[in-house]
């Protein structure tokens, strides 16, 4: 036992815990913390025990804003992270703005708000301390949950009561970036313990008293329900009922397995809606029809492409095609709804909880305020859960059956259920003059329910005198939806591969070619520039440095750079010959997303985005026969596995700008970097995805297929 005198004259007694058994340190439970916490604002409460409860408003699907958002609040509040407890907030449109997870937009949207929330509370705590100590606020400091006046320390817990009643200051000073103690340090995922010990976290884990399970048989695309014979299905023990709504046949019961069995016994007849039922051969024909029709809408036109191409000494033309893709998050679609007399309880995984609530309110004919929406953790989203279709289904059933309903989609439902990344085809053309200079550039994009299949203002627009970008879509009954980095998830590959071909035709190094274009965009821009040239150059030059671009022996390098969702990523992929086969060895990624809040989380998003981009570029395919996807589960719908991944090295640009988002930006450049490296090592140009179907891939062994 050590005894020391404090400067204030009190006795500070230190205990050696292992040597004596009293007094016991009081262990404070989380329940107690939540119970006693005093609310300061939408984002934080402080308990008298000096713990801080921070509310994370946005749906969490693995992007880890549930950790990084609270880090920002904790930083400006100036607390010890170990005293922070994070809670997922329910939907609350009065307290929070934009409780959406999509578009890599959460961080840029909330950065300032979160800082304000932490800083204002800190200020109020200082005001309370100033009052108590009867000193000016300006003479106080804070450090890790304490307000300090000379040798006096008052912790936030003891000040919370008084502080919370003070007026909320309008303008408070925020920390300088250089003074950050939490932001920029690796903080572990707040849900690790729960995830790794099997605690209920996900929508599929929701079970409530008197709840019934439901599963739905949905029609093929382009068909409607004609008749259903459910006699055999209803005989399965555990099945309570079979009901229909819209074109759906729903099996209701006491557990998932009885429903899975019962569905197989349903005898359902469908009839076509109006048009020909679609198959992949039809889509392929349609693409070429549209590309050759000349009817695509002009999205951007600079200079005179017709003249440029007429006067061209050489024209380079390539076409690129990709299939529909399922999002396939590991947790399939599901939702819980309890429609009551004049209110609705919703619980489940949604990237758009406000949309979910409004959909429920509309179906039930009540005000949205009567609908509560509890956000579960999402077992992946990728854009699929931006839709409210599975919410609506659960609500319809609960309303019909007058019981709480948990709707589960099987994996087969999920893969065949639509909301796909659209199938798209591109025709790129470049015109070179007699001196191998680039004088014209055309892109024609056609897509199935793609909306605008191009991003006409992206680089290289602005860097080329004569440029034309067109787009056309075909309205198919096969439903589509935003899929991680919508449109750019394939466009970037096609464009970065094409630029590689053009560079080669011009006899230029592909990186030099990009830098020259960027210089032109800077010094004599053509039309509007919608990208930050310096930020793009920054990631390029850093990628060159980190990868030793052009300097390595025995290694074939492919380059790609892309700007999407406010952030910039450059990649260098490396392939080499091992035992006579081409192997994708490593990819360098350099990211500019502004200030990196949580380096471990940021690294995850870059790796995850890259494996997502790579895996789908290489393996995943959806083909259709008469309005139904041929691939139904992971045995035929192929996702990338551990044996198939290269080494990845990530770097982040340190430029101190406000965070610009990271959920999607690392994905788009990946396909191009990989394809360009494969070309270098094998001489094969890959133009269609999945690469594994391309003739050129048959002689390659990229990783070991599962």
């Amino acid at each position, binding site marked *: 036992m050590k005894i020391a005198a404090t400067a204030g004259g009190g006795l500070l007694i230190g205990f050696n815990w292992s040597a004596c058994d009293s007094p016991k340190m009081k262990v404070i439970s989380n329940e107690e913390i939540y119970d006693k916490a005093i609310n300061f604002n939408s984002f934080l409460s402080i308990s008298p025990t000096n713990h801080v409860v921070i509310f994370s408003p946005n749906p969490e699907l693995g992007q880890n804003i549930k950790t990084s958002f609270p880090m920002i609040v904790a930083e400006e509040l100036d607390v010890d992270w170990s005293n922070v407890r994070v809670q997922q907030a329910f939907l609350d449109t009065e307290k929070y703005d934009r409780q959406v997870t999509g578009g890599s937009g959460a961080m840029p949207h909330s950065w300032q708000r979160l800082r304000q929330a932490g800083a204002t509370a800190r200020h109020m705590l200082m005001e309370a301390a100033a009052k108590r100590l009867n000193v000016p606020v300006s003479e106080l400091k804070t450090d890790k949950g304490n307000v300090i006046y000379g040798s006096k320390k008052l912790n936030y817990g003891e000040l919370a009561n008084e502080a919370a009643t003070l007026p909320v200051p309008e303008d408070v000073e925020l920390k300088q970036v250089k003074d950050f103690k939490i932001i920029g340090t690796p903080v572990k995922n707040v849900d690790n313990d729960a995830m790794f010990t099997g605690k209920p976290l996900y929508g599929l884990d929701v079970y409530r008293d008197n709840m019934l399970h439901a599963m739905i048989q949905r029609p093929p695309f382009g068909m409607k329900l004609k008749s259903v014979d459910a006699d055999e299905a209803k005989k399965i023990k555990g099945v309570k009922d079979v009901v229909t709504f819209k074109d759906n046949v729903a099996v209701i019961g006491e*557990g998932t397995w009885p429903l*899975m069995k019962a569905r197989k016994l349903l005898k359902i007849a469908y009839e076509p809606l109006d048009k020909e039922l679609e198959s992949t051969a039809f889509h392929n024909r349609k693409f070429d029809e549209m590309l050759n029709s000349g009817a695509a809408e002009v999205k951007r036109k600079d200079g005179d492409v017709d003249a440029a191409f007429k006067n061209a000494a050489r024209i380079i033309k390539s076409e690129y095609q990709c299939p529909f893709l399922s999002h396939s998050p590991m947790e399939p679609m599901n939702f819980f709804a309890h429609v009551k007399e004049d209110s609705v309880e919703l619980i489940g995984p949604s990237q758009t909880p406000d949309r979910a609530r409004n959909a429920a309110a509309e179906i039930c004919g009540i005000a949205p305020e009567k609908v509560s929406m509890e956000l579960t953790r999402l077992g992946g989203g990728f854009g699929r859960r931006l839709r409210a279709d599975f919410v609506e289904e659960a609500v319809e059933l609960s309303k019909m059956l007058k019981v709480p309903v948990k709707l589960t989609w099987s994996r087969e439902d999920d893969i065949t259920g639509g909301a796909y990344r659209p199938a798209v085809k591109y025709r790129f053309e470049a015109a070179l003059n007699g001196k191998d200079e680039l004088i014209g550039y055309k892109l024609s994009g056609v897509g199935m329910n793609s909306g605008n299949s191009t991003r006409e203002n992206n680089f290289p627009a602005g860097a080329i005198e004569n440029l034309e970008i067109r787009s056309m879509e075909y309205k198919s009954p096969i439903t589509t939806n935003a899929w991680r980095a919508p449109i750019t998830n394939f466009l970037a590959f096609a464009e970065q591969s094409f630029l590689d071909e053009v560079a080669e035709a011009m006899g230029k190094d592909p990186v030099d070619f990009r830098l020259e274009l960027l210089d032109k965009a800077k010094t004599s821009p053509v039309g509007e520039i919608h990208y930050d040239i310096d930020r793009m150059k920054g990631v390029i030059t850093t990628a060159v440095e980190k990868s030793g671009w052009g300097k390595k022996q025995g290694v074939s390098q492919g380059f790609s750079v892309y700007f999407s969702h406010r952030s910039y990523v450059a990649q260098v992929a490396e392939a080499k010959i091992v035992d006579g086969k081409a192997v994708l060895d490593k990819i360098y990624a350099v990211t500019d997303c502004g200030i990196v809040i949580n380096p471990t989380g940021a690294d995850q998003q870059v790796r995850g985005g890259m494996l997502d981009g790579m895996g789908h570029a290489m393996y995943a395919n959806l083909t259709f026969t008469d309005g139904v996807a041929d691939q139904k589960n*992971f045995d035929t719908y192929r996702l990338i596995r*551990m044996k198939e991944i290269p080494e990845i090295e990530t770097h982040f640009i340190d430029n101190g700008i406000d965070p610009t988002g990271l959920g999607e930006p690392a994905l788009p450049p990946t396909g191009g970097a990989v394809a360009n490296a494969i070309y270098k090592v094998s001489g094969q140009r890959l133009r269609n995805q999945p690469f594994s179907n391309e003739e050129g891939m048959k002689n390659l062994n990229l990783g070991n297929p599962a």
Partner: protein
Amino acid sequence: MANYKLQVNNKNYEVDVDSDTPLLWVLRDNLGLIGTKYSCGISQCGACTVHLNDEAVRSCVLPVSSIGEAKITTIEGLSDNGDHPVQQAWKEVDVAQCGYCQAGQIMTAAAMLKKNPSPSEEEVIDGMNANLCRCGTYHRIKEAVLLASTKIK
């Protein structure tokens, strides 16, 4: 429906379900043990992995009638305090993104390390390859398994 006695995480349970009911659904729908996850239902992804007498098995294709007296361990029972070396390593390496596949990854790794406590990197990749992760945490999973192997005595 028939009565089945099951031993799960050192506890005895009795359930009344059809003989072909996969253990996965018995755990989730009947026993409230939701840590074991459904993702494909056809043994292609590993999210449903549990231990049957120390062997990693896919509970989505394991009929309850075939279990008998075998001891079942789920993620909830892998350790008392979340401190199995694999769980510790998972936390240290900060493996997860969405986390949905991770219970299955952990159970697969734990069973593998029980058999082979000092695997090479190649053996780790071989052993974990059948578990899917849609978020792409494979690099970290590999690192965590190797780290866990250093903690196992």
